[in-house]
């Protein structure tokens, strides 16, 4: 099968800034990839481009061999950093919504996970805490049998127990034809789960290698190495 994500000389400009300055990248299937970099390095921009929310300024991005559009959106499961479910919806309505629009959505798995985390199914999102909303969004995203998962800071504001649950869910959902991209700055917590890490800085790929290679070559964790590379 073709690589799940390919970028060649990808450039994205905003009004006053160049967010991506020529990204070349190929991601193969069956990987769990960490997208690491300081704020402003272009991580979210890259993810949004793959999700089809932005158009490239120059260069090319392909998801499963196609330019981002309606067909790739059916293959991509995207978790943004923000709450994106409407206030008036409840968890069970959200499950219904995802079932309606995504053929690869596993409603039974979603309900199971919601039940295990004791999430109230009929309360509107307006009434739920931020942490609960984030958990619901993550469950919805991970209940899809997508080919590319794009998780933007999935463990940012979450307590350690929930964090473990999230990483466990990512591992147990692993499939050989799918790739999970986790963009985060909490590297120490996710390191073990990743095969590959991509260091992004100022809109270009600085490094693209495996966790074990970094550890073998530098004798330290990826987290320690990252701090070293990006220290101010």
């Amino acid at each position, binding site marked *: 099968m073709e690589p799940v994500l390919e970028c060649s000389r990808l450039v994205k400009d*905003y*009004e006053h800034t160049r967010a991506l300055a020529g990204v070349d990248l190929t991601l193969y299937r069956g990987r769990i990839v960490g997208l690491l970099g300081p704020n402003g390095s272009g991580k979210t921009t890259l993810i*949004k481009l793959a*999700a*089809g*929310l*932005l*158009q490239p300024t120059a260069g090319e991005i392909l998801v499963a061999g196609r330019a981002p559009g*309606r*067909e790739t*959106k*059916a293959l*991509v499961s*995207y978790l*943004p950093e*923000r*709450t*994106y*479910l*409407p206030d*008036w919806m409840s968890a069970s309505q959200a499950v219904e*919504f995802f079932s*309606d*629009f*995504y053929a690869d959505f596993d409603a039974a798995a979603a309900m199971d996970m919601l039940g295990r985390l004791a999430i109230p199914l009929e309360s509107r999102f307006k009434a739920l805490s931020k942490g609960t909303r984030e958990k619901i969004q993550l469950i919805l995203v991970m209940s899809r049998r997508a080919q590319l998962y794009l998780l933007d800071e999935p463990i940012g504001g979450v307590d350690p127990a929930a964090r473990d649950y999230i990483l466990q869910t990512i591992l147990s959902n692993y499939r050989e034809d799918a790739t999970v991209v986790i963009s985060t700055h909490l590297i120490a917590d996710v390191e073990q789960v990743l095969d590959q890490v991509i260091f992004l800085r100022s809109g270009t790929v600085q490094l693209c290698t495996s966790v074990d290679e970094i550890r073998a070559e530098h004798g330290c964790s990826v987290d320690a190495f990252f701090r070293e590379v990006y220290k101010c």
Partner: protein
Amino acid sequence: MLSKLIKHELRATSRPILPLGAAMVAYALLYRLLTALHLTRQWPNLDQTLAGLGLTFFVLLMAACGLIGTFLLVSRYYHSLYTDEGYLMNTLPVTPGELVWSKLLTAFLWSVFLTLSGIVAVLAAAAGTATFREVVGGLADAIAQGWQMLRFDPPLRAVIVSELVLLILLSPLAGFLRFYAAISLGQLMRGHRLLGAVACYFALNFAFSLAAALLMMVTGGLGVNLFSSVAPSAAVAVAWGYALGIVVVEGVVYFLISHWGLSKKLELE
């Protein structure tokens, strides 16, 4: 996918809009009840004043419901596509065209709902009263007259009637699309997106009115002859034909702008 989008749209918008229709009908019934009771019949002046006030308020209420309904539907477009919820809607496996159509058709359905509610309210308030019978009678006569005038020219009659129907149906669609296009254009103005949208709305309105006027002038040279040499009924057909043409062109242009806004120029915060 489109029907699913519409279903979702209707569900999302029913909570604020159904009460508007209900309010109109409820008020009409209340008005009818109170006037029937003639509570103040002992004071004829007061009676009349109150009836007048009640009626004025009724008209204002209907206008307000219309405005609020429009505002809700337009802000729904903005909210669901260009704010945080946009992250959900714009990553669905649907085309930008389907997104615009779903909002448009939902807006149309609610417009029909509010119009029907308004009609029901008017009937509730006034059916059976003398004034009502007069007004309706007058209207019926006028329509019958018009119908009679064209009895010798069934094709023309058909054209005029269909033009009228299309104008009634398509004008609100073009109206909503104008809002959508304005919102899409406003998005290009970083930092002043809402203000930009408002400005673009009036700009689009002005631009098309200008275009329509120019069109009239240009064909006026021919039109003057046309209108004077031809029966009034044919003139009506031509005039409405122009109006219809402009509405259709407007609708298409606004749709294309909205589509372009979602597919090429989406930059969610």
